């Protein structure tokens, strides 16, 4: 009965989306008509119904209702509660429901709080949001019903992929989804503005918090996903250029560009067409990623729910939404005037340059991801990896980093580089010093070398916009930019350092034997069996000592799960302020020695601290913008009151 309630709520929500679509688009010409009155309530109730349906699914997983097919195939009564709940979205149907829920709730939120847009753009935006939503409702209800019952209740569930039984991964997909779906709001805004031809600074200001929010979630999601892959998969790397990873990186790149071009539009009424296009592209990348992950069209280590039929469905949705929006863009871009002019050496100029570089990097990643698809059409199987992505991406990344250091120092509209000569020389000197030092002291490749040098330069440069200002008067949004840019520098330093100074040791060690990696000496004290709630494992007892210091005990495991049967490696990490020791236990050889795989990764944690700093910066910017808006709104109300008083 409960499952049927969830399904009914979903159908009702879909019907409301249809109403919202029709009423929204029909009343664009008559924004004060009766039909227009329906749009906001429809969006709000739709959000509530979806939240209810998702709550129902969580409940079914919490009580392990094995008469529901999705629960029986993805859960197990013996699982810890947190993984029962995360099982709700750790599969195709549940994650689609999460997707539509976040989307509907975002639509409801726009209807509730958005007051800046002209009413007809608002109606067009909610109509577009409903249009996109309807496709996903159709997908969910017609081909991936999460509430489907089994003819006979199962006696026990099949379990959740053990790789997914990890606290990090339980929360990683929802985080990314908030990001993907937040971009659907930007998409709807862009479509709405194109339909009513009202691409104004007000529009950019209305869209910006949504983009910022989505971007923060994407940043956290990617950072967490990278750390999860790093410690859970046991291969010691943090980025693989896997299609699924790229699927999350591409919307991030587009959203980063969108964020900056929306700022130009908001502040200076320039880059109108470009901002609109990025709004369309950013969400296109979210959908494209979904398509690549679920259609099975590309081979990936973590693609899931591979099904060509679902793939066709998403491809049709893609064609309608993205194709439609891009066609609309092509038709309307001409009538959206380009806005204010600016010179090359200006804040806008720098932002445009970085926008172009970000788009170029996006192009590089997109091409690398889709290239196997092209060659497969000619029956050649290839996989594109770091040898392509790293150097080709770097061609655009380093110029972008350089301009990123300069841009925030420039004035809007028109400036001279000569005015910022002193700080530029300072940044240049820092960069050059690090470059020379690393070159002299270490033998490393060109990319990590440049990475270390640019990271140092950017770290200094990111604080320069605060120079000579009263720190208490600096707007919160500016602090956000400073922190986010500094975060990029920190993450870059981590990546470059991990690549440049990484030490690896693969050893076969007898119990009692010792091996070393970098400054660490590691002794294998023993190996013993251990058991968990739904797995058994062998656990090694390692005594690891850094530079002859006090040893710490580490216990890497090789786990065997039995529902479903799968073996995983639980690596262990010893984190110090200057890096991480990474240990994995392998098989026992015939001579009784155990395979031990060890890495010493100096500064590697900076990658993820940097990512979190970037997200923190985004959050600060978001808070700052919202505060500014509230202040502006208060001032406007007060002015209106005063005017009214004066008239009376």
């Amino acid at each position, binding site marked *: 009965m409960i499952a049927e309630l969830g399904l009914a709520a979903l159908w009702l929500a879909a019907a409301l989306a249809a109403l919202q679509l029709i009423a929204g688009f029909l009343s664009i010409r008559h924004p004060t008509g009766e039909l227009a009155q329906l749009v906001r309530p429809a969006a709000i109730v739709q959000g509530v119904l979806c939240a209810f349906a998702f709550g129902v699914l969580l409940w079914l997983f919490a009580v392990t209702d094995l008469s529901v097919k999705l629960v029986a195939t993805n859960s197990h009564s013996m699982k810890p509660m947190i993984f029962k709940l995360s099982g709700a979205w750790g599969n195709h149907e549940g994650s689609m429901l999460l997707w539509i829920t976040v989307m509907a709730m975002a639509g409801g939120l726009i209807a509730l709080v958005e007051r800046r847009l002209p009413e007809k753009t608002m109606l067009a935006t909610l109509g577009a949001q409903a249009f996109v939503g309807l496709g996903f409702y159709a997908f969910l209800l017609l081909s991936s019903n999460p509430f489907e019952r089994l003819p006979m209740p199962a006696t026990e569930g099949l379990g959740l992929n053990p790789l997914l039984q990890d606290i990090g991964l339980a929360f990683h997909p929802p985080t990314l989804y908030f990001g993907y779906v937040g971009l659907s709001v930007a998409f709807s805004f862009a479509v709405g503005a194109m339909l009513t031809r009202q691409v104004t600074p007000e529009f950019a200001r209305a869209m910006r918090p949504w983009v910022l929010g989505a971007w923060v979630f994407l940043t956290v999601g990617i950072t967490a996903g990278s750390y999860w892959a790093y410690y859970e998969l046991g291969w010691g790397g943090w980025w693989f250029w896997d299609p699924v990873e790229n699927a999350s990186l591409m919307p991030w790149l587009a959203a980063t560009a969108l964020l900056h071009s929306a700022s130009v539009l908001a502040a200076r009424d320039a880059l109108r*067409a470009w901002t609109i*296009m990025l709004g*369309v*592209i950013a969400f*296109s990348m979210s959908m*494209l990623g979904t*398509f690549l992950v679920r*259609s*099975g*069209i590309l081979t990936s280590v973590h693609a899931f729910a591979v099904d*060509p039929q679902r*793939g*066709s469905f998403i*491809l049709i949705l*893609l*064609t309608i939404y*993205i*194709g439609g929006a*891009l*066609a609309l*863009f*092509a038709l309307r*871009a*001409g009538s959206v005037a380009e806005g204010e002019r600016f010179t090359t050496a200006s804040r806008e100029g720098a932002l445009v340059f970085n926008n172009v570089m970000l788009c170029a990097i996006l192009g590089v990643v997109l091409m690398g991801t*889709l290239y196997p*698809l*092209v060659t*497969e*059409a000619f029956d050649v199987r290839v996989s594109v990896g770091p040898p392509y992505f790293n150097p080709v991406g770097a061609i655009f990344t380093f110029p972008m980093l350089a301009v990123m250091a300069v841009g925030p120092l420039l004035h809007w509209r028109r400036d001279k580089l000569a005015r910022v000569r002193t700080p530029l020389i300072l940044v240049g000197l820092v960069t050059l010093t690090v470059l020379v030092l690393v070159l002299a002291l270490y033998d490393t490749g060109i990319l990590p070398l440049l990475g270390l040098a640019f990271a140092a330069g950017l770290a200094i440069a990111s604080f320069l916009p605060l120079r000579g200002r009263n720190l208490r008067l600096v707007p919160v949004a500016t602090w956000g930019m400073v922190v986010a840019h500094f975060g990029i520098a920190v993450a870059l330093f981590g990546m470059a350092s991990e690549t440049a100074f990484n030490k690896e040791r693969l050893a076969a060690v007898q119990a009692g034997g010792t091996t070393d990696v970098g400054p660490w000496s590691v002794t294998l004290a023993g190996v013993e069996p251990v058991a968990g709630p739904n797995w058994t494992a062998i656990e090694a007892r390692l005594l690891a000592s850094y530079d002859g210091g006090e040893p710490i005990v580490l216990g890497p495991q090789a786990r065997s799960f039995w529902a479903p*049967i799968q073996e995983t490696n639980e690596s262990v990490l010893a984190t110090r302020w200057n890096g991480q020791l990474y240990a994995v236990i392998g*098989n026992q050889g015939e001579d009784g020695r155990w395979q031990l795989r060890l890495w010493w990764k100096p500064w590697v944690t900076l990658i993820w601290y940097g990512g979190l700093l970037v997200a923190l910066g985004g959050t600060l910017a978001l808070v700052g913008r919202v505060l500014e808006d509230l202040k502006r709104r208060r001032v406007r109300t007060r002015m209106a009151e005063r005017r009214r008083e004066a008239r009376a």
Partner: protein
Amino acid sequence: MRWWWIPLGLFALFVGLAGYQLSQPKEEFVRSTMIGKTLPAFALEPAFDGLPGASDADLRDGKPRLLNVWASWCLPCIAEAPYLEQLRASGVEIVGIAIRDRPEDVAEFLARHGNPYTRIGADDLSEVMLGIGSQGVPETFVIDGKGTITYQHMGDIRASDVPVLLEELRKAGA
């Protein structure tokens, strides 16, 4: 024509390509690269007391055979048991390789679901399994009398697969 048509054009290209790829039949499994090649050398202990173990030499005495990779803990292996029985009844010799199994479990499985095998080797570390390019249980290989792998069947054998396997065995010289 202005630049703003370019994104639509690129997108159309992508849709065409993706649509074409989706309409293509998809290889669901990774085929063994060992097809057409000689078996690697191996010698496996008996998986239980009832039957002798298996080695590559047993498979190059001139008579084509099936090499069946299975395990007592594998559910599809139960499903294919009757068809293996059917193949044995048609005069096919089947050599089994039991993956990560225990003697008592093997004996119990054979007692319950029938024993179509002439030999069963115990592959406790999946070494032979990986050596012949098998990625899961059950899987069945056709080996001609000279120890060459001529055909690979992935997953459980169903009724419709029996004639195919018999035909492959005939082609291999039975």
